[in-house]
């Protein structure tokens, strides 16, 4: 692998400055994805800026409700936190459905959100990939693409975002706190990740050198009844072939509020706004849930090997919402 330098700053400004000064530098958090990609030659930074000693740990309740989760909080710590388990079960379940115990002990909150696609072709420098090597083509478009996108892909890229945590945060309307060279700002979670379009190498809306410092989860009492369903090819340590995060708030049998997000269907965690619109203010039935999923999936364009994802996502949408409804009955 390429020889690289290593720095471990202790304050955020220094970290951001280090990145800003070196166009080939990369942040290192848990290392569960980046280090693999470095060994494979997919990413070749010349400087690693280790952010795990920055003061970005801790999970704090916010004054008006909700939680603020530090960027370097490990996935296992977040999943086990009593307030997460009580107020946002969808978040805890998404985390625990991901990776393995060992990986969760290392992986951080921000690193999880910024992990790269697991598309076979992205991870193999011998194959064409616009995300890894812009302009080289997308081998996955007509290759082995069972795991890849059905929504919002482009001819340039059909990759999916692999995170489970991100699907839950999309459903919860989280906000990402970002430090940039000229200050800090808040980014709504659903605006963090990009569609692939013609530039799949750009995965987020963050400028180069930006550092996620925390994720705020707003108060959402209905999220105490929330669910994360993940479908995968083996019982553990596998990325989703389809996932749904759901929050359902019923008033009697009327849908007062609903949040839905899908995983493993698109280049970004997929907030299903269209389905939510179909559901909100109407009498909940499993049939309505199916219609809502159909509305969301009307835009689906399956690839050669992943047509099964459309009925699969529909099925888990119906199940997740129906189980939440039954629990409130």
């Amino acid at each position: 692998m390429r020889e690289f330098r290593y720095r471990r700053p202790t304050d955020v400004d220094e970290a951001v400055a280090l990145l800003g000064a070196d166009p080939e530098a990369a942040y290192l958090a848990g290392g569960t994805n980046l280090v693999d990609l470095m060994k494979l030659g997919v990413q070749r930074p010349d400087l690693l800026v280790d952010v795990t000693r920055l003061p970005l740990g801790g999970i704090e309740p916010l004054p008006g409700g909700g939680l603020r989760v530090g960027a370097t909080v490990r996935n296992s710590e977040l999943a086990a936190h009593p307030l997460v388990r009580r107020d946002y079960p969808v978040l805890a379940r998404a985390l625990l459905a991901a990776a393995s115990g060992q990986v969760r002990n290392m992986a951080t909150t921000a690193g999880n959100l910024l992990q790269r696609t697991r598309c076979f072709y992205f991870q193999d420098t011998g194959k064409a990939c616009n995300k890894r090597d812009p302009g080289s083509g997308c081998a996955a478009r007509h290759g082995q693409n069972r795991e890849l996108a059905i929504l919002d892909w482009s001819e340039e890229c059909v990759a999916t975002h692999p995170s489970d945590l991100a699907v839950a945060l999309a459903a919860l309307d989280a906000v990402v706190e970002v430090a940039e060279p000229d200050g800090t700002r808040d980014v709504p979670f659903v605006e963090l990740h990009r569609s692939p379009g013609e530039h799949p190498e750009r995965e987020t809306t963050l400028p180069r050198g930006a550092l996620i410092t925390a994720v705020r989860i707003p108060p959402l009492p209905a999220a105490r009844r929330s669910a994360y369903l993940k479908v995968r090819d083996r019982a553990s340590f596998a990325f989703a072939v389809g996932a749904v995060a759901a929050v359902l708030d019923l008033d009697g049998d009327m849908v007062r509020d609903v949040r839905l997000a899908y995983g493993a269907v698109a280049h970004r965690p997929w907030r299903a706004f269209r389905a939510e619109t179909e559901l909100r203010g109407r009498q909940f039935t499993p049939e309505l849930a199916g219609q809502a999923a159909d509305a969301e999936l009307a835009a689906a364009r399956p690839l050669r090997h992943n047509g099964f994802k459309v009925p699969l996502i529909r099925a888990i949408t119906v199940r997740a919402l129906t189980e939440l409804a039954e629990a409130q009955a």
Partner: protein
Amino acid sequence: MSAGAVGRAHPRLEGPEKVTGTARYAVEYPLDDVTYGWAVPAAAVRGRITRIDPEPALAVPGVLAVLHHGNAPRLSPDVEAELYLLQEPAVHYRGQLVAVVVAESIEAAREGARHVRIEYDTEPHSTVLTADHPGLYRPEKVNPGYPTDTSEGDFDAAFAAAEVRVDATYRTPAYHNNPMEPHATTAQWRDGRLLVHDSNQGSTAVQAALAELFGIPRESVRVISEHVGGGFGSKGYPKAAVVLAALAARQVDRPVRLALTRQQLFGPIGYRTPTIQRVRLGSDADGRIAAICHDAISQTSTITEFAEQTAVYTRSMYAAPHRRTTHRLARLDVPTPFWMRAPGECPGAYALESAMDELASACGIDPIELRVRNEPTVDPDQGHPFSSRNLVACLVKGARRFGWGDRDPRPGSRREGRWLIGTGVAGSSYPARARASAATATALPDGGYLVRINATDIGTGARTALWQVAADALDVPPERVTIRIGDSDLPPAGVAGGSMGTASWSWAVTRACQELRDRLGHHSGSLPPEGLTVAASTADEVRAQRPMARYAYGAQFAEVRVDADTGEVRVSRMVGVFAVGRVVNPTTARSQLIGGMTMGISMALHEEGLLDERYGDWVNHDLATYHITGCADVEQIEAEWVDEEDADLNPTGVKGLGEIGIVGTAAAIANAVRHATGVRVRDLPIRLDKLAGSSPFA
């Protein structure tokens, strides 16, 4: 035998070393002046290298040398085409190892490998096996020497006349062995002698191959393989790593460590060939089979012929007067397939034992009863008597243990919440063979004994089993016995493969120990300081074995649940009952059997090499994307055995049990999935999207 060590459970002798990390594997021996080798895979599928430019690699700090066909030391071309490495510009498959970078550090070697510039002339390639591939041909024999085709009676007429017929085609994908320890070697040349620490399943064969390749006497090569982190067949013969390391060490005149990467295990070391298998069964209404036919198609490479014996299983498993088996091969631009746990039997049994289940359904007969009704009295293939055949005993005991009796055979008849529940059964068999081996036994003046044999413990517990066998043969407590294995300086022995390790080695150990006892009986006075040593070889005895059908048998039972919405399959329960002769060490035997069954779950549900025909290689070439069954996929698993005495095997009476566990497992699971859902999946693995036609996604 007063000691009675054989048959008693005992933990592995080297267990503490392994769990504390002090057991040394091939590239873990401390060495001064060591260098690191990194193999470079070809980026072309078929063609030839026209130019190699090593300069950018040599410019990487720490890189010492780049070996390739233009500068590597010469090898003998007469040993094995697979091992004729870095000698020619020809490229036979994508990923073929065509260069080695040697450097002062592993990081520099890896970075150097990235910078070797290779240009190719390429030709069109063919990498996908199909039933109508224009290159299909009939090999002269199939592994390891069986006739390609067999025929008895008149299959076509009998099948046409049968009251009940099953005619189904089953497919299995490429499976990759993936031992935890990759193929890895440390090689050193000293004064014209070659010393390698190597990860393999039989260092006697590695020693012989290296000596011939480098044109030096066998005595000038020493291969040490004290601990081996698995092989599953892929290390059953010398492979690229050891040859590349030896070449590199000679070139740089320093020790070289070279381990293949996980990605490089998907190709250059072999894999289980994909198969396409048509099985036809014709029976009367009571399920008595009149006609069996099994036509198997698999692939080989353009380098050498590897003919998987896929249909051989069907030749001896069930009775039928009219029978036929055939094998056809396509020579593709792919790596050469190789042995993977129960080669032939494993994919073949998936097809036949699935077809038996289809026949049971078609006849309305319980699948266990169907197998009982078609039990042969002699080997249907050769007409030889069975040394022992306890398939029915395994089925009966397993049925009781599993609770088969109250099964409602109707598909989809059990549902618990969102889960569709089903159960399935399959038979298994695997040949019980032995190879000639040699051993020595030494009585030491301090009252201890030293037993030496070049057996290999690839994680099976072989070392411990031989120690137990030796103690009983010497009639002493095992604590007085020291066993030495895993070094080609020891008496030569057969490979840890084909489920014949313990049978072969225990035979030689027993003879050496028995002869030592005889000698000691005639010895008077004290022993000399070096002790008293006798040597024994089983070559004559093994050769003199009378023709007989010698097989281990088994019955696997599976309970699965299938998510009615998503099609996800989970194996809730597995029971395997086996007839494997005498069990030397119940602890390690059980581990082998449930390990085989677990690998069978993996074969049924998870593993699949996904080939991209444009690139000509498998795109899911790591353990994150090539799924292997994990602990969470194995919920309840039990392995048991029936008491079996078989005097026609070897002195210890063992049949070998490294492979029988996997043989029928995938069929048992596929049969259970059919029972749960009504969907018969005839192409493995059984992925959730293949069940979309049942109630899932309704």
